[in-house]
């Protein structure tokens, strides 16, 4: 827990430092039309960096034995996150509907070990239902790929 707390605080300080640097470039003083662009971000980032530094010092002083995450806890988290990221990659090329179908099918089989009929029903049914609701009823376009183009949408 302490290491994670420390790393997060340091990351926040890093973000703060980057923002301060950019704010200084923009100018943090008084310009022609009042406060310059960097004025507000500068003071925000400065306060954030100082506060994060206090949190980091406090974390150093207060040791905890409780781990941030155990291996058994982390495994299901990665099992959700990695396929989700893969789906987003697929969305870029294949469109949302195909990517969602593949992702749903993969996760249900890999994690849930559901039967193939269930998987087929849901991984095809959900994208089709989404298509009808978003594209047809509410006219909200989703990213589409070669399959939709082939089908003429």
């Amino acid at each position, binding site marked *: *827990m302490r290491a994670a*707390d420390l790393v*997060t605080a340091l990351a926040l300080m890093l*973000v703060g430092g*980057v*923002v301060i640097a*950019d*704010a200084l470039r*923009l100018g943090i003083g*008084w*310009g022609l*039309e*009042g*406060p*310059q*662009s960097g*004025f*507000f*971000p500068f003071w*925000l*980032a400065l*306060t*954030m960096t100082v*506060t*994060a530094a*206090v*949190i980091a010092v*406090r974390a150093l002083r207060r040791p905890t034995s409780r781990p*941030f995450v155990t291996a058994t*806890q*982390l495994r299901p*988290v990665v099992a*959700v*996150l990695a*396929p*989700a*990221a893969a*789906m*987003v990659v697929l*969305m*870029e090329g294949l469109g*949302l509907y195909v990517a*969602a179908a593949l*992702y*749903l099918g993969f*996760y*249900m089989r890999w*994690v*849930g*070990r*559901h039967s193939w009929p269930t998987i087929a029903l*849901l991984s095809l049914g*959900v994208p089709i239902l*989404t298509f009808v*609701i*978003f594209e047809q009823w*509410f*006219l*909200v376009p*989703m990213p589409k790929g070669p399959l939709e183009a082939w089908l003429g949408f």
Partner: protein
Amino acid sequence: MGFDNLFLGFSIAVTPFNLFVAVVGILLGTIIGVLPGLGGANGVAILLPLTFTMPPTSAIILLTSIYWGALFGGAITSILFNIPGEPWSVATTFDGYPLARQGQGGQALTAAFTSSFVGAFVSIVLITFFAPPLAEIALKFGPPEFFAIQLLTFSSFVGLGGGDPLKSLVSILLGFVLAAVGLDTMTGQLRMTFGVTELMKGFDFIVAVIGLFGIGEILLSVEEGLRFHGARTGMKLAVVLDTWRILPRYWRTFVRGAFIGFWMGFKPGGATPASFMSYAFAKRFSKRADRFGKGELEGVVAPETAAHAAGVAAMLPMITLGIPGSPTAAVMLGGLIIWGLQPGPMLFKEKPDFVWGLIASMYTGNIIGVLMVLALVPFFAAILKIPFAILTPLIVVVCAIGSYAVHNSMIDVWYMLIFGVMGYVFKKLDYPLAPLVLALVLGDLAENALRQSLIMSQGSLTIFFVRPISGIIMAVAVFFFALPALTPWWRGRRGAPRPVESAASRH
């Protein structure tokens, strides 16, 4: 004012289409409230794109109905599954789950829904009367007053939020920093984009809400090994009627809870402390205080009344000042802007049909809501029986759709994943997420108010303290910011021990 406006509102809210919209909204909202990983804020955010083509009044009725539904849904999981869907449902589990384990689930659910309804109703009546004069006062506000109110908003997270004050402060500041990324509307300069085109648009808070609350919550729940040990609902008409016969006995708890809820609720982050406060008061004044925590009906009534009163009261600053009191209200505020409405006090003058339609729909929505959830509890409870290997990818897909639809942009889907990981880490480390979201929403408004105020005063900060209204608000804000430092000192002087912070700091 007068009742003409309210009648105008009802004439809009009670059209067949808008009633249908309310029913759909409550149904969706309750499902959202029951599902792990989806709550009021991100449920509303995901469905926001569906409202782009609707008339604004129907759109806001849909979103508020989803909100009411989500509030009701939180009670179902708290009582039957001991899973508080939202932080303000935590206190409901104390007595609700034991009751359900003892086979009194139907009684507990009826009490929870009825209490929610009563709390919400009292708050709506108060909003009906307080909103117009408040909007009238707010019309006279200048930039310093608006900045002062925003500061008050954030100070209450630090001072009253119940979590770690330093981490609350960092959350707020990070939200503001993220809001500042992109084009500076006052000077036209690009800030913190470092030459990356994608960063020019900045970060949309709706995507942040979906990532932080949706994906983050899913990651947390799979980590805990998503398993539900549900109690039976035991919902029958006879049980409902019997419970309604008992409930009037607790009228004091209802009244107390509703007023605590309203009072805490129109300040941000108020619902959670309100529910705990109401529970604590009920326990103190009850003759059966020793039964609390073991399955006492009054222990369900107290937090539910206060939480809903607070949830509704969070709408008051949104419609009168244009400043949201909760992340869900913030998403609705974002909706208002997308539908082409300017949130704030002018709405009462320019769009009375919208404002009063919204207020009237709060009445109708909550009446429809309580009847629907009473009738459909078994259906909603069955949702949690869906295997989690189906539920989890489904929620991830829904989140991705919602994120993409906001701006039709793939980069937002990536941001959603990043915010999801951030939400997971922050929640584990006790960084509160609600203030981050509110800061992201209010960032530009707050910055413009600050800069305009400084232009008015030629750069002197004293402008915030010499103007009477802003001076008073600033004083309260400074007091709240100092509260975490003052409290231990004050307790030390009185020689009182520091009470153990309960689950209130969960959020």
